[in-house]
């Protein structure tokens, strides 16, 4: 039987693109598993995760180990990126595959924070949103998962079906911020 061709969520959206001091790119598609520990099972989940060098993240936190990342993604929920759910986890937590549900975007550059300030109503100042911090928040009218991936780099995950709108909104904000920077110079 013929194998099916896979399509990436941001295919055809003109990424990567650079405008002013900001670059927007699609993140590589990775395995994403939602982990939702059952009541009273966070410790058991931690025990399983510890073998991978991971913990169950507190709200607003994420961390990396051995090529995998675990990111708080909502109430009693974390997303595990970049590896299969470890053996034994399903006894203590609901697991669901989310690899295809999200479009991952990276916005980086000196103007990244200014661009995001046009779209997200949350405090992204360096001291308030430290590296590896994450949040669920609206990007204009879309709910996103945002994570600080570096000094001036942010990863954004939007529902796959909204990738086009998200790129449009970000590009619009990037253009306006770039114009401001040009006006200052």
């Amino acid at each position: 039987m013929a194998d099916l061709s896979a399509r990436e969520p941001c295919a055809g959206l003109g990424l990567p693109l650079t405008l002013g001091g900001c670059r927007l790119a699609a993140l590589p598609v990775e395995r994403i598993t939602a982990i939702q520990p059952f009541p009273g099972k966070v410790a058991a989940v931690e025990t399983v995760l510890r073998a991978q060098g991971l913990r169950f993240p507190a709200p607003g936190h994420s961390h990396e180990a051995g090529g995998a990342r675990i990111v708080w993604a909502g109430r009693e929920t974390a997303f595990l990126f970049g590896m299969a759910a470890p053996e034994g986890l399903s006894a203590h937590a609901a697991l669901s595959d989310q690899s295809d549900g999200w479009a991952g975007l990276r916005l980086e550059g000196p103007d990244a924070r200014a661009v995001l300030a046009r779209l997200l109503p949350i405090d992204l100042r360096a001291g308030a949103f430290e590296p590896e911090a994450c949040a669920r928040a609206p990007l204009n009218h879309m709910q996103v998962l945002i994570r600080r991936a570096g000094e001036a780099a942010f990863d954004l995950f939007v529902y796959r079906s909204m990738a086009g709108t998200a790129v449009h909104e970000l590009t619009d904000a990037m253009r306006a911020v770039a114009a401001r920077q040009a006006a200052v110079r």
Partner: protein
Amino acid sequence: MRISCPCCGPRDRREFTYYGAADYLNRPALDADASAWDDYLHLRDNPAGETRDLWYHDPCGTWVAVTRDTVTHAVIAAEAVA
């Protein structure tokens, strides 16, 4: 107005969906009489002062019971319902 989500910290109230009075937390038993259900579903106080109501933080999925003052608009407390 800003509400402090127990998960996410202070956020603009536009991120929240309002439901109604915290009375909704006290669901009567199935066989409770009609007046108990009427009270639960439809009868509300309208205090000038402290009130407690339910807000949903859409981004993270947490239901929050918010104690606030309808006169001063002060938010006195915000706690997860579970």
